[in-house]
């Protein structure tokens, strides 16, 4: 791994990483990639987020969906754990709550494959700081 030797290094790296991420979003294929983030903090894991994460990693590939599954921290909706954020290419991310393996299956088949929203969306109710 390259060491960060100066601030200029870090800035270059950041730009590279940011364009990597947007590349990942746009991707070479026109239909783009699906991003799935599973909230894997203590609260999520306690409610079964691990199984859900495994289900997504295992099944998306099997069902030929071009997707990346990553873990993330607590989204704050502890009452609705496990929570999963799904971002279809070119669309706003959608967060689903109370996701078990059955719900995960529905999310793959209906939302990810056909773009139909399914029950259980958690509305976003906060603002983030703009990064610039």
């Amino acid at each position, binding site marked *: 791994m390259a060491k960060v030797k100066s601030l200029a290094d*870090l800035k270059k790296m*950041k730009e590279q990483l940011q364009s990597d991420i947007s590349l990942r979003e746009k991707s070479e294929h026109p239909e783009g990639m699906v991003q799935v*983030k599973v909230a894997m903090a203590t609260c999520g894991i306690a409610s079964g987020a691990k199984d859900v994460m495994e289900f997504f990693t295992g099944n998306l590939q099997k069902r030929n969906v071009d997707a990346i599954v990553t873990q*993330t921290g607590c989204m704050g909706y*502890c009452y609705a754990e496990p929570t999963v954020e799904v971002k279809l290419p070119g669309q706003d991310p959608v967060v689903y709550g109370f996701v078990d393996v059955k719900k995960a299956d529905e999310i793959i088949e209906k939302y990810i494959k056909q773009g139909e929203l399914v*029950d259980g969306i958690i509305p976003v*109710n*906060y603002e*983030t700081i703009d990064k610039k």
Partner: protein
Amino acid sequence: MHLLVCGGTGCHASASNQLLENLKQEVADKDLAGEIQVISTGCFGFCEKGPIVKIIPDNTFYTEVKPDDATEIVQEHVIKGRQVKRLLYTDPVKKTVISESKDMGFYKKQLRIALRNCGFINPEDIDEYIAADGYIALGNVLTEMSPEEATKVMIDSGLRGRGGGGFPTGVKWDIARKVESGQKYVVCNADEGDPGAFMDRSILEGDPHSVIEAMAINGYCIGADKGLVYIRAEYPLAIERLKIALDQAREYGLLGEDIFGTGFNFDIEIRYGAGAFVCGEETALIHSMEGHRGEPTFKPPFPAQSGYLGKPTNVNNVETFANIPVIYNKGAKWFASIGTEKSKGTKVFALAGKINNVGLIEVPMGTTLREVIFEIGGGIKDGKKFKAVQTGGPSGGCLTEKHLDTPIDFDNLLESGSMMGSGGMIVMDEDDCMVSVARFYLDFTVEESCGKCTPCRVGNKRLYELLEVISKGNGTHAELDKLRNLSEVIKDTSLCGLGQTSPNPVLSTMDNFWDEYLTHIEDKRCPAGQCKDLIRYEVIEENCVGCTACARNCPVNCISGERKEIHYIDQSLCIKCGACFDKCKFNAISVS
């Protein structure tokens, strides 16, 4: 097109499922099922104006929608593309009609600064943190600012410690900076002992690099090359993620020697705590890290003068640190523009108790309790009545209805008889007994007192016993007087913050719920029905149909009665478990 219907508990209570059915039916009738989907969602948190329907993609936001409105929404909005004006939300202040949720003040109540990356980035991948501006603040500070200038940014930002005390962070750094010493330390307090609080854990699990980056900045400002994170061993996942993050930062050269080629060295070690509440107190924490007993010692000397191994040490809380990189990236002025006059920025709260949306929230200082509980928190569970909210954990107090519109900040909470603490917020409804609540917190303090000072070690135990006497129905006015006097003595004569604040739950419940204490001692009654010795379960004869459900569920078999005949509870055997009350479908069991 999608029609999103709120299926949260609040909206459910106002017939949102009928609305959902009607909308689906309407869509099906018009042969639109192929293009239009009707979806139920989790709580929008706007239960006051529920049920809510949101239409995507145009983001129209309808409030207080009745099942009968389904036809009009489909006819007008879906088919003809015209908004149903009467269902749009009217801004209560400006009186203007707002059609899109993003323009509603309500959706701007939360602002995420400390939690900015939690739930967004992968905490085990430093690249994601760097892509989100990570370590830029450290780079800028090291290459462009002197330690004095960098400390000044903290002072100007007005950031105050989030660990409970609320001491201005920049001022604390400046004190440590000015002490002359060859060796200094930076300590991150991740002990988080307050029952009900879990924001520090979530930050370390969701965004560990922000804490690492801030500790390095802190090291540069005060002249320390070593950092320590004191974390309770009960947080295995947070520890794991922190370790991964430390390794990755070292690999990238963002920790270690000659960081950013500036000659600045800094590294961080982890120290484990055994989960004692008192070890969150900074002097006890330092002793514990040194391998001594976790007992507080008198201040001064403050850690900034003589801390870890007798060297100048700056201690800050996890959430305090998590705010810091953004302050450098966006400027002290930006940060100081958020919040109230004396409390800048935001605060993370862990909402728990009888509230619909249990979870972690982050709001600007100055947000009111009402906004937090009824708007973001979605109100009280099962449509019950709000009674009190406990803030500040075992050191804090209960706030009531009359405090709901007080803007939350350090000073206002203190003035109202509670405190900010670390941000636990436990909501209570009409079924919670305030004597029991005070007893619960004292039970905790008695358990957690380190035992060094007599007033705290013995006094809190006595307070607990007095409360026990009252909840058993044996209390008199003499007990109430003793409670108050003893509380004052413990506050005045204890060494550390634990003892100095431990009577607060007693005092604040006595101040705010005096009548409830009186009912316990004068009428020997517990209005909330919580104090077991003061309640009776009885069969209401008119309602009893003799279904035998109660008798079958009574664990001590003290209910007698034949099928289809009135049942009877033997009071001398009843253990007041409440099973009969829960099981009876005919409301034939009363609690008094």
